[in-house]
């Protein structure tokens, strides 16, 4: 081995704690990068694999009642490879002991012939026997959420008749990876998917020889747009509710959002880590190179060319980077498989599949090496370029000058120790700046990672206390006269009733279109309000429609423009509709109108399709029991149950990410503070030892050294709060927000937590160095020349 490489190894060993602490920062960056992006690609792969093997449909449509004979026409749509028709109905579901109503989506299947699309995976039990009346398979999510056993029975209200159904099997479906009654919330406890013999389902709903749901698979390379149009056209006479492509299918859409979040996390946060690592490396190498000025001069005098010397220090940097990369790859693998596992469970993918693509490792290592070499070269450049004769001379004694406070005449306020601390800070402002920036970065990362909990809390608070204020929402099977509200008001426990009407619609603007619903609200609506991100209530514009900003953007329209509305119900009116304004709502892709205007548009009388209720807490139970007996009340949602489920699911995720990011942020903080303290100690050991000889106590010299770091931490934390706010804003800005756009809300507790974690990490690393100060070898230090 070359002697220079031997020196390398010894230097690395001598600085091992510092080497490891920097390597850990790098490892966090690489780990986050590889972990998130490999989770991203694993989930994409899992989903694709699942969709392929289950033959997931490309286009979905529902109608009221279409004759079975239409099926051949469906198959004739250009670009369509296969078409399947089926009967799907929602019905009220009851389980013993569960008061709030649940919804069952009943899907008819011919169990003798497995479907060509959306194939199910049997997870337990067996399929219902072909033709068996009372047997169903249930989706695994509901079974797990409710803790159900196979063989158990439940009651479903089938077309006004209560039927007992027996669970014989449990299954997964690509259509309900994310199962929800609507909206973007997980809904596993309240929404069951039941697969049942198709003939008995058809018989129960008088759907023999007819269908109301269509699935299409397209020929390879065809996009869904044309098929959606043609399908809409074919289904229109039969009460089609508008077809959607896969990207707008509820489960896929939410899945996509979740998966894409990984990508943002995987790129933005690791970039911050690598930047910090590069800076620390720069500072440490600067110190290393400067301390070895004499050695560098000797190497030059011996005839080592600059390149060899630079390479020597780059190797030092590489050792750290490679150690970091190796740890990071391991960490990334662990993190990636943990997260992929978490999501696989969460989504109930049939197979767990984790893969870490080699390019991730190469890209991560490459980016880190580049960042580290950037930092290292900047440090090496100056000294290596010195003429050997100059490098031989010790660097000129550091120049100190009176502090700003002293120049202003307040110098006497400071003790000599404080003056030394402050002058040191003033002398190396760049290093102080890097330290402050590094610590601030760790605070920022922590904030940007854990503020999601706040954002979710805030979102829930706004959504369920200010926007949808109804405690119980009722959806009617068919639109009913407005007078229905009086009947609702007479029900037990009801304090207030507010009716509304929602009509499914396809909105068009030029070549863009979107399938949603227009909701008509009473002018004095209290329980359903339209609030923008700043919680300002938007006013409905008479004769016009108000769009969620996201929807307006998707349609590329602005207030004043006219869009085409095709109502997908009743007379199926097509009419131009003026956009009265857009409102920056947090959730949904909504279109709002005045109730009268909407009914007028539909050319219908004063009809309503649902109502929101305020309820007496004590009367709730009785009310819910009563509602179950009213067939017209097809959908009953208790807000509280939605909120609870949402909290539970998000709490688990938030806890996982908070833990990981806390560790990561602490690593950065330790990396920055510890390295700094070590460098300070190395540079000032002589000075500190001299002071000890003069009679300073250990505590006093520690204050001299660590006081500076204390000041830097104190300055960095508030700075980190500001940086965290902006980093969170950046993350939010990058995040996909097709379903929900989370607000930038950070509660004081989050700031406090982040500040406390980083301060604790800083103090801990300072204490480790303090131990070294205490054990300073006075004689040894004073003997050395440096």
């Amino acid at each position, binding site marked *: 081995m070359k*002697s220079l490489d*031997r020196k390398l190894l010894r230097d690395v060993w001598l600085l091992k704690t510092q080497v490891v602490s920097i390597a850990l920062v790098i490892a966090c960056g690489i780990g986050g990068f590889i972990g998130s992006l490999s989770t991203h690609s694993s989930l994409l792969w899992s989903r694709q694999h699942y969709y392929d093997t289950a033959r997931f449909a490309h286009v979905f449509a529902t109608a009221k009642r279409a004759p079975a004979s239409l099926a051949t026409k469906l198959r004739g749509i250009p670009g369509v490879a296969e078409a399947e028709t089926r009967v799907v109905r929602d019905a009220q579901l009851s389980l013993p002991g569960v008061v709030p109503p649940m919804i069952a989506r009943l899907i008819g299947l011919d169990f003798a012939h497995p479907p060509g699309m959306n194939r199910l995976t049997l997870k337990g039990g067996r399929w219902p026997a072909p033709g068996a009346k009372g047997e169903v398979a249930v989706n695994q999510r509901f079974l797990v959420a409710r803790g159900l056993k196979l063989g158990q029975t439940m009651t479903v209200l089938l077309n006004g008749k209560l039927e007992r159904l027996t669970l014989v099997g449990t299954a997964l479906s690509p259509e309900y990876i994310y199962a929800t009654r609507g909206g973007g919330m997980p809904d596993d406890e309240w929404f069951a998917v039941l697969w049942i013999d198709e003939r008995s389902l058809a018989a129960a709903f008088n759907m023999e020889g007819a269908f109301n749901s269509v699935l299409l698979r397209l020929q390879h390379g065809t996009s869904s747009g044309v098929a959606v149009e043609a399908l809409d056209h074919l289904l229109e006479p039969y009460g089609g509710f508008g077809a959607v492509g896969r990207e707008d299918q509820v489960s896929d859409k939410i899945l996509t959002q979740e998966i894409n979040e990984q990508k943002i996390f995987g790129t933005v946060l690791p970039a911050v880590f690598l930047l910090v690592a590069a800076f620390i490396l720069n500072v440490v190498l600067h110190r290393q190179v400067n301390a070895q000025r004499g050695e560098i001069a*000797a*190497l030059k*005098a*011996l*005839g080592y060319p600059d390149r060899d010397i630079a390479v020597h220090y780059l190797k030092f940097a590489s050792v750290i980077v490679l150690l970091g990369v190796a740890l990071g790859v391991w960490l990334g693998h662990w993190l990636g498989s943990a997260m992929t596992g978490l999501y696989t469970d969460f989504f109930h993918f049939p197979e767990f599949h984790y893969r870490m693509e080699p390019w991730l490792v190469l890209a991560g290592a490459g980016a880190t090496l580049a960042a580290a070499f950037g930092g290292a070269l900047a440090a090496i450049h100056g000294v290596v370029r010195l003429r050997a*004769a100059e490098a031989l001379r010790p660097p000129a004694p550091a120049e100190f000058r009176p502090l700003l406070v002293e120049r202003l005449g307040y110098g006497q306020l400071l003790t000599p120790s404080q003056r030394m601390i402050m002058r040191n800070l003033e002398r190396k402002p760049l290093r102080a700046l890097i330290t402050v920036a590094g610590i601030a970065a760790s605070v920022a990362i922590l904030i940007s990672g854990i503020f999601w909990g706040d954002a979710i809390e805030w979102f829930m608070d706004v959504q369920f206390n200010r926007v949808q204020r109804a405690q119980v929402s009722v959806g009617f099977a068919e639109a009913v006269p407005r007078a229905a509200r009086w009947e609702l008001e007479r029900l037990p426990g009801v304090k207030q009733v507010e009716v509304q009407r929602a009509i499914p619609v396809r909105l068009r603007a030029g070549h863009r279109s979107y399938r949603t619903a227009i909701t008509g609200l009473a002018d004095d609506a209290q329980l359903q309000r339209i609030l923008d991100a700043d919680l300002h209530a938007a006013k409905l514009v008479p004769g016009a429609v108000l769009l969620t900003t996201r929807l307006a953007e998707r349609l590329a329209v602005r207030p004043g423009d006219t869009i085409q509305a095709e109502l997908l119900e009743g007379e199926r009116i097509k009419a131009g509709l003026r956009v009265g304004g857009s409102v920056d709502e947090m959730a949904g892709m909504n279109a709002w109108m005045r109730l009268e205007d909407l009914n007028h548009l539909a050319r219908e009388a004063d009809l309503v399709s649902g109502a929101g209720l305020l309820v007496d807490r004590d009367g709730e139970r009785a009310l819910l029991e009563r509602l179950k007996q009213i067939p017209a009340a097809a959908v009953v949602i208790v807000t509280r149950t939605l909120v609870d489920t949402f909290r539970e699911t998000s709490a688990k995720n938030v806890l996982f990410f908070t833990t990981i990011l806390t560790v990561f942020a602490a690593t950065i903080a330790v990396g920055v503070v510890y390295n700094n303290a070590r460098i300070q100690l190395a540079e000032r050991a002589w000075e500190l030892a001299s002071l000890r000889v003069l009679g300073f106590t250990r505590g006093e010299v520690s204050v001299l050294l660590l006081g500076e770091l204390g000041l830097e931490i104190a300055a960095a934390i508030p700075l980190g709060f500001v940086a965290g706010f902006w980093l969170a804003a950046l993350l939010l800005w990058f995040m996909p927000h097709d379903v929900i756009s989370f607000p930038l809300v950070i509660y004081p507790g989050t700031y406090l937590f982040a500040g406390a974690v980083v301060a604790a990490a800083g103090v801990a690393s300072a204490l480790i160095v303090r131990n070294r100060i205490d054990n300073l070898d006075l004689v040894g230090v004073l003997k050395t020349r440096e």
Partner: protein
Amino acid sequence: MSAPVFQARGLTKVYRMGEAEVHALRGVDLEIFAGEFIVLLGPSGSGKSTLLNILGGLDTPTAGDVRFLEHQLTGADEAELTRYRREHVGFVFQFYNLIPSLTAQENVALVTDIAVAPMPAHEALDWVGLGERLDHFPSQLSGGEQQRVAIARAIAKRPQVLLCDEPTGALDYETGKLVLEVIAKINAELGTTAMVITHNAAISGMADRVLRLGNGRIVGEEKPARKLTPAEISW
């Protein structure tokens, strides 16, 4: 005598420090011949180190002209100077400049790694009487021992010239003598041209020739009648 090893004409070195100019060398002419033992004397700031550094290719003159054998040193670029140092020059400094993280043997091996036809590291250390201390780190050696390691490191490449800048400056009397003995021995037995800077006029007794520098010029040159051995001199 044979052709000179070093030949310098009108060597000038000016340091610019902002407005001020420091004239370190003001036109130095000199010739140094193979195998000579030269002592450079002069008050502090007279330009001794500057001259030695230029001769050793560590620095370049502002004006004037230096040759080492057939190599033109003035106008050579950094890469050429590096090769020149690597192949022909051994340096010894006042503060040893050893690599603290390498043992004595490894410090010497730094040179044998890159030189053309070096002597083995342990042989170089034998030369300076440290054959038994191969595996000691600089921190485990006394000042004089460290300086002898530095000398071993300088001679391991079998240089044509050995340039020593105050090699005894940081050492006590006895130790200093020991170091000088080593240099004299190398000069005598290996025929290496040696040039030693010192503040100590007594050492000049060992020299073939003594050059006196004053204010950037050569102000005197003496040839001692009889060359003393280090053992004979005292200060």
